């Protein structure tokens, strides 16, 4: 089954490029550490999922590139082509000249309707190329104007045009100390709209990835490219082919469905966080070895303590004692309650791994059976040069604090009415803002009361 990716805005296009790069280099790599048959099966599956065969023999990413100004797409297309290993289809991009000026209203109310037809036609064309369409992933930031505003509009269009397809938004949350001054407004508008159209939001926070670059990857002068490469690696670790639990011998044929159905049991709870372990500079990989019990133990504590990476984990945080029914307000502080979790294991000896600790009922809300709340995918095929790696996709309180912080800052600014004239100019009124705030306060409240 194939996934069509829609890259929106500067961030979406820059990350999309890194994602396809890492997928491509992973399948070409010789560090599969598994049987030849397994490796070939993996490569075939990845290619079908993300690339289409072209006459030239160079695989073309199943992607549509959208931006309201030309510089980034132009760069993205040429960087891909230069690699010689993969490329973008030369007709799969849509560009304008002026950009969105960091204005969500401009992206949503002006660019969206104006360019809907052209953009959706490109999407339709990519979708038709797929033998079996597995769904859509959009990549966007929520701080700017195009990825956020036009992205929200396109997401709605995708939902309308493909009502039965899976739709996942991969959203980048900006650094807390500004990249864009109106980023909190744009974020509130984006998140509330996406919530109504998409199946789920898979979130990466720039602050978190930046810390990973600084502390784990040991990069001195961190560039956006470094950040994007870590994000791409984390995405790859989830989206590359795996065997699902009852999937028989072949690789999963419904990656998005397999991801979304267990993780989003309730429409009020759509926020997914992503963690990956281990993460380190490539130069250190050769000198490190890992044990599965160690990795699983760290990953579980990362989940429970809401840590961002394998360093600085608070080991004091424990799940509440089983057997006692504690009202949520009395739950131990800092404990991250989960609704559902997915763990993806790749590499040597995966079949021997004991994941019982993730099925502990005390980690979860009481709505689902622990067996249903937890899913595991495995493949013996190692990913991106890591002999063993584990990824966690979690529908839990991971994003509660950051979301609350963004809404708080946006509200604070809204109360002073600063910048509102920039939005009303393009058709977003104060009432529209209020609706969005209400939606998000509801989400915050729901996640708080888990």
């Amino acid at each position, binding site marked *: 089954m194939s996934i069509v990716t829609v890259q929106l805005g*500067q961030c979406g296009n*820059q990350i999309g490029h890194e994602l396809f790069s890492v997928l491509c280099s992973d399948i070409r790599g010789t560090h599969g550490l598994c049987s030849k048959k397994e490796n070939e099966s993996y490569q075939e599956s990845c290619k079908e999922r993300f690339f289409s065969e072209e006459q030239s023999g160079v695989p073309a990413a199943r992607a549509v590139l959208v931006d309201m*100004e*030309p*510089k*980034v797409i132009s*760069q993205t297309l040429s960087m891909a082509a230069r690699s010689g290993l993969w490329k973008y289809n030369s007709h799969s991009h849509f560009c304008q*000249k*002026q*950009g*969105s*000026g*960091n*204005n969500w209203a401009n992206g949503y109310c002006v660019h969206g309707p104006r360019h809907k037809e052209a953009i959706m036609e490109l999407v339709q064309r990519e979708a038709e190329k797929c033998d079996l369409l597995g769904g859509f992933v959009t990549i966007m930031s929520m701080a700017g*104007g195009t990825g956020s505003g036009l992205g929200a509009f396109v997401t709605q269009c995708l939902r309308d045009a493909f009502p039965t397809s899976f739709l996942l938004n991969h959203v980048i949350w900006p*650094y*807390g*100390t*500004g*990249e*864009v*001054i*109106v980023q909190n407004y744009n974020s509130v508008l984006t998140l509330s709209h996406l919530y109504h159209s998409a199946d789920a939001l898979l979130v990466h926070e720039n602050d978190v990835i*930046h810390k990973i*670059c*600084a502390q784990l990857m040991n*990069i*001195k*002068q*961190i*560039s*956006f*490219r470094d*950040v994007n490469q870590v994000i791409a690696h984390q995405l790859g670790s989830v989206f590359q082919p795996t065997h699902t639990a009852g999937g028989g011998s072949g690789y999963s044929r419904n990656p998005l469905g397999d991801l979304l159905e267990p993780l989003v049991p309730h429409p009020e709870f759509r926020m997914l966080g992503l963690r990956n372990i281990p993460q380190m500079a490539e130069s250190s990989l050769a000198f490190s070895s890992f044990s599965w019990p160690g990795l699983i133990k760290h990953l579980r504590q990362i989940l429970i303590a809401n840590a961002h990476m394998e360093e600085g984990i608070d080991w004091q945080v424990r799940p509440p004692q089983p057997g006692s029914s504690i009202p949520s307000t009395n739950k131990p502080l800092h404990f991250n309650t989960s609704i559902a979790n997915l763990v993806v294991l790749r590499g040597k000896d995966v079949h021997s791994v004991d994941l019982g600790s993730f099925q502990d009922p005390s980690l979860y809300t009481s709505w689902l059976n622990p067996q249903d709340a937890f899913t595991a995918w495995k493949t013996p095929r190692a990913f991106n040069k890591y002999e063993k790696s584990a990824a966690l996709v979690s529908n839990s309180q991971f994003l509660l604090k950051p979301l609350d912080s963004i*809404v*708080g*800052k946006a*509200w*604070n*600014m809204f*109360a*002073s*009415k*600063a*910048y509102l*004239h*920039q939005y009303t100019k393009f058709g977003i009124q104060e009432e529209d803002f209020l609706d969005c*705030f*209400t939606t998000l*306060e*509801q989400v*915050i*409240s729901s996640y708080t*009361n888990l």
Partner: protein
Amino acid sequence: MTQSVVVQVGQCGNQVGCRFWDLALREHAAVNKKGIYDEALSSFFRNVDTRSGDNGPDIYKGKICSLKARALLIDMEEGVVNEILQGPLRDVFDSKQLITDVSGSGNNWAVGHKIYGCQYRENIVEKLRKTAEHCDCLQCFFIIHSMGGGTGSGLGTFVLNLLEEEFPEVYRFVTSVYPSGEDDVVTSPYNSVLAMKELNEHADCVLPIENESLFEIVNKIHQMINSGKLGSTVKQNSLVTSSAGSAKTLEKPFDAMNNIVANLLLNLTSSARFEGSLNMDLNEISMNLVPFPRLHYLVSSLTPLYTLADVNVPSRRLDQMFSDAFSRDHQLIQADPKHSLYLACALLVRGNVQVSDLRRNIERLKPSLHFVSWNQEGWKTGLCSVPPVGHSHSLLALANNTCVKPTFIELKDRFMKLYKKKAHLHHYLQIDGMEQSCFSEAISSLSDLIEEYNELDATKGGPRIDPSRLKIAV
């Protein structure tokens, strides 16, 4: 990619404009080695096939034939424009893009605005339309003028009005040189305040500049070079004041100061023209830095002022660049943003600087800056890969900060001194279309603006307690 058109009005406007075009050519020559007319060049220049004369067609791709500035040169005296047309830049300007007259505006805003405005209206509109037609996607008009005289101030603001009427969708960025206290034009306070009203009402963004600040920067650089203190030589073409490497050969007195303003405009537009990991276009500048329509005055600072020829200790120099951007003596008006209130701040970095450098410096400098309560983390950042000529990196800081207030208050005071005595008023009132009310409305507009800044200063922009959030029934 979008295009911008520069409208240079009056003596000051044209002299600064001239430096801008010279340095723009220098910058593009440094980047564009193959002589191909690319999108970056097209933002400010047309490529014209002049083999059959000046009226040749535009060439949109391929080799550079003849670059023509997307500019309109307006002056009611001929001296400055004539000089430009005889100088090394003569081929850069299309002879059809000039509007000149002979007698000047006599340092009288009313002459510039009412008399010449009326007289040349159609001519100006026609020429503006022509330049707009040559643009694929016109995004912004840059007006360069001074406030204290008659043409730049009066006719310049008339053009500003016109632009809003005829091209309402296109941004209007105005670079305004404000008169200093010791200005020798007696009526400069009148001219400036009358012009301010127009800026308040019709500009999207104003970048105020004060000659004193430019002068001090020029002196600082002279001192630094002549002191020989650092022992290493300065790269000549890196001086923010220098014309080295450009077409110009003879330095004139105001050139150094005007080069600073020219560099301001180059840096402002760099991220729109060149690529980078975090682009910052002109429409984003307006969006992020103007929280309320009338508060659109941005204090700018450029660093570094020069680069040493030998490159060492890059990281410390980088951080120093950020510190300097906030220091009093790098601002282009007499203001101290550090001790006033920030409504918003933009940092546009050029060259080999990454996001971690940006973040490190923001974290470092934040505690010493005062931001308004509803915008505590109000930073807009941009990273452009291409550095300016002679530098490995540079920084342009734009601040929407209450430190503009003293400039405006002083202007008001100087105005009132004259107005109370009705000094020179008759020169204005005798002009058709001018009435006492023009003056009272203008000073009222300025007073209101000052009041808005006062309020922000007093309340730090918000209620003392955070506004309570919406409550959801559980």
